[in-house]
């Protein structure tokens, strides 16, 4: 590890020890804002030194005045840069879980309680950066940090750097947040999975039978119910979406079982299960999930999909990917 990288690591660890973990909204107080000159700031400083030496050499008072005015401008810019971050309220929000391999889009809300707008606020997490935004006076701005995920389980947003170089780019002020914000990562649905097994079997096995032959009554509509089962007449009467239920029909309701999923290792099999779940939900089908020691009875809809994919994400989950 190079000296620079080591130094960066040490600084980060020190900041982490100093500040501890953050929960909930964080107000950027003076104590957690750091500021250093940028490369441009260094060049500006060198220019000022040159101007100072020239003015002293020629005994030129107005040259000195010009040098001092520019130096004072840099000092004011430093304060303004610091102030541009100070008292901002940062709220981090966990995103909807992504599939492994795609980005977890953590939301970051910046609230400005002051009467002056803030300009060019940037946010960065490891492997994720966001273009600068401005926050209007007593207003809010939203940022999105798209953290790439590598594997199933969970990704934890542990380090967010909020920074600004405004106004002149001479200084960079930054604050570090440790939101420790976890986000589940679903297994990536396998690209080509075999179709789920269609085995008629006993209760709790492959399929649950539910009839479609005799009308058995009405039940509440859930997203995912087949449109052809909607009781349109009842809808016209009462304005409520109801679904007709039939008894004794032959539609098979699948319960996906880890044991049925082929694959070389656990991850591959989970991927196949994810594919089955995603496809079944997309078709509007009800489905269940059976994992060792965990059972999700069949149901249709997005909530069921979420529940089941989360179960896959958590099942014998690898250590969280802390960023």
């Amino acid at each position: 590890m190079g000296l620079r990288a080591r130094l960066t690591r040490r600084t980060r660890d020190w900041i982490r020890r100093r500040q501890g973990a953050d929960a909930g909204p964080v107000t950027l107080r003076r104590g957690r804002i750091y500021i250093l000159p940028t490369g441009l700031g260094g060049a500006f400083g060198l220019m000022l030194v040159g101007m100072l030496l020239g003015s002293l050499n020629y005994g030129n008072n107005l040259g000195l005045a010009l040098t001092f005015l520019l130096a004072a401008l840099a000092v004011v810019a430093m304060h303004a840069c610091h102030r541009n971050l100070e008292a901002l309220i940062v709220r981090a929000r966990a995103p909807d879980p992504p599939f492994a391999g795609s980005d977890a889009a953590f939301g970051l809300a910046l609230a400005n309680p002051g009467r002056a707008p803030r300009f060019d606020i940037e946010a960065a997490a490891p492997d994720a950066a966001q273009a600068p935004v401005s926050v209007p006076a007593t207003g809010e701005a939203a940022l999105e940090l798209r953290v790439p995920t590598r594997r199933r389980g969970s990704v934890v947003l542990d380090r967010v750097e909020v920074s600004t170089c405004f106004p002149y780019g001479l200084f960079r002020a930054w604050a570090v947040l440790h939101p420790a914000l976890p986000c589940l990562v679903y297994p990536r649905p396998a690209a080509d999975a075999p179709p789920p097994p269609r085995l008629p079997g006993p209760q709790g096995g492959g399929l649950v039978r539910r009839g479609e032959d005799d009308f058995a009554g009405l039940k509440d509509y859930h997203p995912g119910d087949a449109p052809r089962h909607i009781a349109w007449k009842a809808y016209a009467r009462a304005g409520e979406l109801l679904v007709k239920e039939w008894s004794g029909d032959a539609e098979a309701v699948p319960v996906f079982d880890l044991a049925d999923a082929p694959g070389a290792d656990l991850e591959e099999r989970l991927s196949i299960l994810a594919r089955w779940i995603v496809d079944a939900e997309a078709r509007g089908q009800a489905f269940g999930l059976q994992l060792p020691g965990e059972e999700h009875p069949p149901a249709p809809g997005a909530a069921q999909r979420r529940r089941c994919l989360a179960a896959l994400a958590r099942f014998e989950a690898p250590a969280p990917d802390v960023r």
Partner: protein
Amino acid sequence: MSAEREESFRRLAWTTLGLLAALAPHLLRLRPWISLFVLAVAGWRLAAERRGWRMPPGLLRGAIAGAGTVGVFLSYAAITGLDGGTALLALMSALKLLETRTPRDHTILIFIGWFLCLASFFYAQDFRTAAWVLPTVWLLAAALLPVARRGRGGPGLHPFRTTGAMLAKAVPVALVLFLFFPRVEATFWGAPSSERALSGITEEMSPGDISDLTLNDVVAFRVRFDGPLPPPALRYWRGTVLSLTDGFSWSRAGAPLPRETAIAREGSVDYTVTLEPTGQQMLFALDMVAHWTPGIAIQSADFTLRTRRPVNAVLRYDAVSSLRYRTADPLPQSTRHANLQLPDTRNPRARALAARMRADAGSDAAFIRSVLAMFRQQAFRYTLTPPGLARDSVDDFLFNTRQGFCGHYASAFTTLMRAAGIPARVVAGYQGGDWNPIGGYLIVRQSHAHAWSEVWLPGEGWKRVDPTAAVAPERVERGIEAAVAESELLPGALMRESPILWRLGMAWDNLNAGWNDWVVRFDRAMQDGMLVDLGFDDPDWRSFAAALGIGLAAAMAAVFAWLAFEHRPRRPDPVVAAYRRFTRRLARRGIEPAVGEPPRDFAQRVRYLRPELGVTVLAITEAYLRLRYGPEPAAEDLQRLRALVAAFRP
């Protein structure tokens, strides 16, 4: 044009404008080809950005850069030094403009702009230059703002206004630095040489030199008298003594001569001179100077004051002169010899004339009188625009043209004196001065430049003889405007005609004089005086450090407070604040409004939980709702709400 192109054009326009503003003070000073090149490139570059033309390829730019450097070298004989350096900087900024695309290019241009501002102060520190440079610095900083930004747009960001607000905050900090940064005599590299072509008296005089100066209304120096103003006829400001001649022009003697002494007689005047930069080593003082600010100059054998280094910045000195004086006898042999020197082959007719007139006159004094009478009585004319003279300039002037300016008369007179065996020399300096009644000081301008003669007579020593006074006595008594013909237009003629313009001119000069005294000439002595006034006895570097530290801390605190004020949180509505106070008090007793619970529901809940508070709670809630949502709430309602809340003790 796309929004992106539009923004890029605007950025470039800001930078170019700032750069041109920084170049403006130099454009007239630079060689015309450089100025024209810079302007042409700036115009082309903006048009190219607008129209989307292609930039010239790198090879071409490199070739132009090389040719330009050679051109500067040929024009200035150097690419270092102030003139060459500035020319090169101007040229390079134009070339940089041709390849400016990235923020980095812009930044370099803006930095060059600031350096050009500094360079313009090396040329002139007057008020006008400063008044131009300050907005230029502002403009350049404003140009840096959009360049250095990483985001776009944003609510209400105007680069010029935002930068103005920053500069306003920077001024106190800069002021503290300016006042308390100790001025040191520092030379890090070669002292600036007198390469600068400043107009003014020089160590050499050819016929016509001074008449050029007369057209120049620029201030040479300003004088404040401690006591009465000497009469115009005695305002002879000695600058340099020219005793070496080749028959055409005069120059200062190279070899040092033995020291002579002057004996003051009467008419002592005490005054302070604020001298504009001359690029020369001479100081100007009334004849005959007796005392001057110690260490600032040494007196030469010819009674002139000379500094160690060329005066390249405004210089102030005190002096005491005796208006009537006598120099000591006898004249040292080497000095006598030097002041009789004439080239053998030059001006034969003048020398013959001198021999004849001296023989006729019988005495030195009578000879001088007869020469002056010749100038007065014969057809000699005093004019600003004399014809050019041949190589034997004195002969040409005395027997041919007979039109001349002070230099011609001084040169001819001195030559005649020497030819007759009287030690004589030309003295160059200024004569007269304009009184500024607003500031109460004398302005001596380049147009007051003058040359006269000095002759040495046994028993009397060096005596001033002004042959110009013989031809045009008004020149000495009432100034040059009175002496020249109406048709010869002098600068500032209009100003002298109109009383209002004249007063405005004097007020402007007074402003410049104050600027010189308080800003340009602000030096260590003034700093020490200021520190003593602030209570530091016997200031040393610790006093400076303390003053600088305290001053900077105060200025920074002001910046900090100002920024904090700008960012202060918005004060909540007083009605909401009062209601919030009420809910906070209840919260301390464990009763909190649920999220989204309407005030009336909350009040009912409180009444249920704490029946004894019911009446007050309902009153507060109703008053609050009336103020918030009712039509035309009255000021008393708010007072009542506040009083109810203040008295509310759950």
